[in-house]
């Protein structure tokens, strides 16, 4: 059995190349970007490209423990390639695929190793020995929430967990699942940048190739986007109700207004048409309305286009009404709309 203070081994760096210790290890190699096009290092670049291809095609990266050194170094190179694509789909998919791979390995790790890995991400985690409890770990609720808020199954809701003085009691498989989320978010954050050193032409070429690969193999709907026309019959019941209330000049709560505006903007209703809707409203002010709608639609301000809250949030705030059969199978009003359009 490993002792808790033992450092990670090289094999661990290959399995989990995003660890702080792995990054340190790579730094000691003192490899420069220009070195990557050196024929002696061809296998690094090849493996990096392969990592991305596997991510795009299979949503999981393979693990090659026969060539540990290449396995370790090819990770930061693949990260650079992913950034160079400037393609949000590729970035997301790559982070997910690396996390999926790490997860497969995590499932095989002993409890002590799991704790070390979690501590790499500064989790407050401890082994619990409470007899009579079917749990192996306690994790601070903050670490728990950070990694569960977009898991949809109700079992992940904090309210359904054993919470005591700030820690959540968890089983081994819960913790590995949470760690997978942590890894995915961690890599996504690393990819969330435009800043890159000047890359050799060969690397730019690979990035372009990856974009082509996505275009050829991934369906348009998966790469997102709604048709330009608004189909009212495909609105989910909550939006339908807000829309009707609104267009007849009834009062809507703040969150109701936001949900409706963000929904309509997200499915491509022109800003002017949304503002027209607001005109029926008794406290209508053209200036304020324009300001709010344009911000939510991402035309002004931060340019973030807001999306409506997910179903669960709408339930919390009492916006969810008359859920129908399709509602049972979706988690977001936009998904409802997309599914209904496909029918």
């Amino acid at each position, binding site marked *: 059995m490993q002792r808790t203070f033992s450092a990670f081994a090289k094999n661990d760096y290959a399995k989990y190349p995003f660890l702080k210790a792995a990054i340190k290890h790579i730094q000691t190699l003192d490899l420069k970007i220009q070195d990557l096009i050196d024929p002696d290092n061809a296998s690094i670049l090849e493996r990096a490209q392969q990592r991305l291809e596997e991510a795009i095609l299979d949503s999981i990266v393979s693990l090659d423990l026969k060539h540990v050194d290449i396995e370790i170094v090819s990770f930061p190179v693949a990260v650079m390639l992913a950034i160079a694509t400037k393609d949000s789909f590729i970035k997301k998919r790559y982070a997910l695929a690396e996390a999926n791979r790490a997860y497969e390995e995590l499932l095989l790790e002993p409890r002590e190793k799991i704790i070390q890995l979690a501590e790499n991400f500064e989790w407050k985690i401890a082994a619990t020995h*409470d007899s009579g409890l079917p749990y192996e770990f306690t994790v601070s609720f903050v670490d728990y929430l950070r990694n569960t808020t977009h898991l949809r199954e109700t079992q992940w809701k904090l309210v359904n967990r054993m*919470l005591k*003085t700030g820690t959540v009691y968890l089983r081994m498989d819960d913790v590995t699942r949470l760690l997978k989320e942590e890894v995915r978010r961690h890599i996504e954050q690393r990819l969330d940048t435009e800043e890159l050193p000047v890359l050799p032409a060969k690397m730019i070429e690979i990035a372009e190739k990856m974009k082509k690969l996505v275009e050829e193999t991934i369906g348009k709907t998966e790469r997102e986007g709604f048709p330009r026309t608004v189909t009212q019959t495909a609105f989910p019941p909550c939006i339908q109700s807000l829309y009707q209330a609104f267009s007849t000049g009834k009062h809507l709560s703040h969150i109701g207004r936001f949900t409706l505006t963000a929904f309509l903007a997200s499915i491509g209703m022109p800003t002017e048409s949304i503002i027209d809707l607001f005109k029926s409203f008794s406290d209508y002010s053209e200036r304020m309305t324009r300001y709010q709608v344009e911000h939510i639609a991402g035309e002004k301000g931060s340019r973030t286009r807001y999306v409506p809250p997910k179903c669960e949030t709408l339930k919390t705030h009492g916006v969810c009404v008359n859920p129908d059969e399709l509602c049972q199978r979706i988690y977001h009003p936009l998904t409802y709309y997309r599914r209904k359009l496909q029918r």
Partner: protein
Amino acid sequence: MDSRAFVQNMFREYYAKDFSLGEDFPSIEKREFGFASFGGWMLRHKSFKTAEELEFFLQDSVPYGAYFSCAYYEDPEADMNKKGWLGADLIFDVDADHIPTSCNKIHDEWVCGSCGFAGRGIEPEKCPSCSSEKIEVNSWPCEVCIETAKVEIIKLVDFLVDDFGFSEKEIRLFFSGHRGYHVYVQTKSVEPLDAIARKEITDYICGRGLRFSSFGLDGKVLATKKGAFKVLADLGWRRRIVRGIKDAILNADEQKLASFGFSNADTRAILENKEKILIELEKSDKAGLIKGIGPERWEKIVNLSVSLQSAKIDTVVTTDVHRLIRLDNSLHGKTGFKKVEIPMSAIEDFDPFKSAVAFTKGEVTVLVSSAPAFKLDDETFGPYKNQKIELPTAAAVLLVCKGRAEVIG
């Protein structure tokens, strides 16, 4: 004197002589401040480097309401999306407006904005006369309302300490100055929580999305498995559910159960098995299956427990990571009360009609149109109907702020 000028003068005096922000106000320079004026406009995106600077501003501007952000920003004066959000305190609001109370809000007055039709109590969704939905409410800060809110706050604090593990130092309680309470959790670990994480916290406290089976307490298990209460440790909501059932069953009588919405048959079954249910909860070896309480009845009992144990907080406030909230020790324009901090140990005995009184000197003559009886600083007033009367300043300010009296002379 005009009534608005009177209130404004009193507020001016308060901010000049009595106001102080208090020592415990972390990172003032990173907060956004907002102010509502007596004229009805709103000033936002202000910031202050020091408490003195803020105090000077209040003396100078004499706002109707003063607010600060739960959020910390790099640049609090910038446009919303350029402020640079650094984190936020975790805040809670419990307001009697959102909770059913035994007074039934009979002291509240409402009037239809379209046709002028008026009434008392909980306002209707639509005007009974013209069906307009523009209903304006003139609420009253009644003792029953505020007491009801206090019960919810005590439940909330129990969640924050026992389940979330915050220390008493990290939790701060305030009376809002009107009909509710605010709670701040101020500690580094909560600052980065996003809106979704905060929503999970509110769902936890409201018991929303709770699945009984997560705790081995679904009706089917309780009705068919012996000793279902024995198998798991009482942690989290499981502990609360067990506690809630015990409370509800111990005090159960026909009237109570009916008020919780139980049918006659349910009520009879529960009362007949009261002892057995309590034994079951004690986890004693005598526990066994209870005839007459099937899966559905168990679910109803557990449901009742959850609704009794949850705290009725305003979910929108907690999930808004940019929220502006009333400033500590500032005056509430609807009452003339100040928002005051309550030491955790004093919450049970806290009396806002004493501790939140900002004006303690002088008398003012007012013409009261209508007001229910109320207590202020241990003195009882009213009820009043169309009468001229000399009142202590705080009582006069309250009635004028509420639009129920005019200053004379």
